[in-house]
């Protein structure tokens, strides 16, 4: 299973990359896309929308199921990836390239609450 060491994760199977400008780029993990199967629809939030931690931000739907994507930290959405909404199969092809949205954390320290790769691996193995 592909769990890059340089990313952070949540128990809800999101991956998070900290960018130099302080924003967080968010997608779903390779494990999540594998569980969902072929994705056919991605619903993205409005840029500028604010979310509490673990609030539903986006929805990814495969042929068989819909799955919510949650805010990894509280913050404001500053960008969405329209390419992923136009071609949801990009998530199946490379879950770590097909990001969903970028969020600016309300509190920069909140990033410390995220799981590292080893902790996420453990979580997946235990499931």
């Amino acid at each position, binding site marked *: 299973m592909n769990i890059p060491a340089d990313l952070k994760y949540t128990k809800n199977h999101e991956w998070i990359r900290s960018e130099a400008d302080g924003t967080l780029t968010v997608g779903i993990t390779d494990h999540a896309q594998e569980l969902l199967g072929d994705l056919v*629809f991605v*619903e993205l939030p409005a840029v500028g929308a604010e979310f509490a931690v673990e609030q539903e931000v986006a929805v990814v739907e495969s042929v068989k199921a*819909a799955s919510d994507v949650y805010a990894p930290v509280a913050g404001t959405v500053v960008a969405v990836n329209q390419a992923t909404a136009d071609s949801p199969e990009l998530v199946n092809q490379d879950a770590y390239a097909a990001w969903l949205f970028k969020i600016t954390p309300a509190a920069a320290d909140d990033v410390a609450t995220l799981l590292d790769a080893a902790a996420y691996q453990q979580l997946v193995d235990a499931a």
Partner: protein
Amino acid sequence: MMQKTVLNDIHRRSGARMVDFGGWEMPVHYGSQIDEHHAVRRDAGMFDVSHMCSVDIEGADAAAFLRRLIANNIDKLTVAGKALYSAMLNEDGGVIDDLIVYYLADGNYRMVINAGTADKDLVWMKSRLDDWQLAVTLTPRREGAGALAMIAVQGPNARQKVWDAQPGCRAACEALQPFFAALSGEQFIARTGYTGEDGYEIALPADQAAGLWEALAAAGVQPCGLGARDTLRLEAGMNLYGQDMDESVSPLDAGLAWTVDLVSPRDFVGKAALLARPPQVQFLGLVLSERGVLRAHQQVISEHGTGEITSGSFSPTMQQAIALARLPLAVAIGDRVEVAIRDKLLAASVVKPCFVRHGQVLV
């Protein structure tokens, strides 16, 4: 512990993702559900459907038994090998199961029933036999000695690839018309399916199933899981038991009126209830006009009242979401309706519930 078909090891070796389907561990896909779907529409795919249960119904009273047991009229079967699709109803007119029954010879029928309902179906059938005092034996063929596996091979090239994989069967099954079956050695080959494509469903001794599966794979038939099976049957406008109908639903409210014979004078279980309660809803198709995915239990809002989706998904052939739905009787084909998806109302159009047949989009 989940039940397994004889092909379980092959599925696992082929990289299938296995899921619990009504107590059976079955492949949902072997990599990509959508690729498998397209393989059936464009070429040939195969499904392990050994979880379904064949039941041999034999004896002097077999026809009399079936005449009373099922809602379609067994007397329509007069030619050996002919198949009949029917619902089996309870006294309230609810659907206990949907099934196919084949007429093999006088006093000799074979019925194929759903996996998850097989046990209750058999209990029901035995109780009817006891009540009616008929000379019939019921022999389920899913377990033990005489167990049958079943492989459905579907797609425009499916029949050719079956003949390529086992040339010996061609003489027995090439001339079969749709909805007919024939024996070829120990194989029972039916020109039936659940995809809207041509093909065969082959029942054979369980210990021969792996050999046939591998021969078909070598002939270029794509293994397909239950995921593709569901989107294919939905595009074909075919009902799924437990989703589009169950014991609380009349066949007349589930798009199955064409399978219910209310014309002949014969009595059958559930007939009185059906006659006493005319259709309450109509069962039609929906095509979503916007991006999104239709799902079971979403509410449909029309100017004539609300309805409910019973099966919905994304159609890989149409690249749009489609659904089967129970709608108010006043709704007409061509009407525009709205579907409540999360916090939005999305536009959809009402269509005849057969979206795709033989590779062609019909709506």
